């Protein structure tokens, strides 16, 4: 699955995007976050406050309990500050 990061989530992870192979059993957005946090301190730092980080599946906003259900891309980012 393609994972993309934006703003300070991108800075903390240290990359803008990557391809990851999700283990069996990871079926939700929250599951992806838990898996990423196990990958190293940079992910721990990016997702230290899980409630703050937002997610989008195939470019649509989703909540942590959303099912991945075949999505090709997941993105993580802080609350938005445009306008």
């Amino acid at each position: 699955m393609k994972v993309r990061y934006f703003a300070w989530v991108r800075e903390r992870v240290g990359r803008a995007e990557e391809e990851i192979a999700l283990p069996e059993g990871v079926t939700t957005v929250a599951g992806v976050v838990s898996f990423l946090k196990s990958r190293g301190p940079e992910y721990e730092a990016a997702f230290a406050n899980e409630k703050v980080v937002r997610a989008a599946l195939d470019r649509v906003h989703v909540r942590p309990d959303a099912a991945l259900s075949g999505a090709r891309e997941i993105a993580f980012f802080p609350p938005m500050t445009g306008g």
Partner: protein
Amino acid sequence: MAVRIQPEAFDIGAEIGRLTAGRTEIGAVVTFTGLCRADGETGVISAMELEHFPGMAEEELSRIEAEARARWPLIDSLIVHRYGRLVPGDPIVLVVTLSAHRQAAFEAANFLMDYLKTSAPFWKKEENARGAEWVAAKGSDDEARDRWR
């Protein structure tokens, strides 16, 4: 009905001219322009970098625009949002709504901005005396959006 994401500045007069050219059913045009303030969210700023999620930014703004058009009898609408490096005084965002009567255009423009602020994937990083700092989202923006529910 259009959405544009661009690094360049926009010309409000030219945009209104394009939107109204040759049309006689429009009775009201409302525009909102958001500008980069020197008195930023993190202090006095010299510039800001606006990051966005290409693709999703256009799609999310289109979803918000479709919602506005479902709620109000708009004849047309336009959202322009810039990205990249901006300095105080620069325009950031433009919302234009056009309708037969003013109330729909006023309310729809207000709605579009409230939703844009909280759901369009843009992030501001301000340059101030301490360096560069990400702007934190404001609870008051969430409240402004929620009053439309």
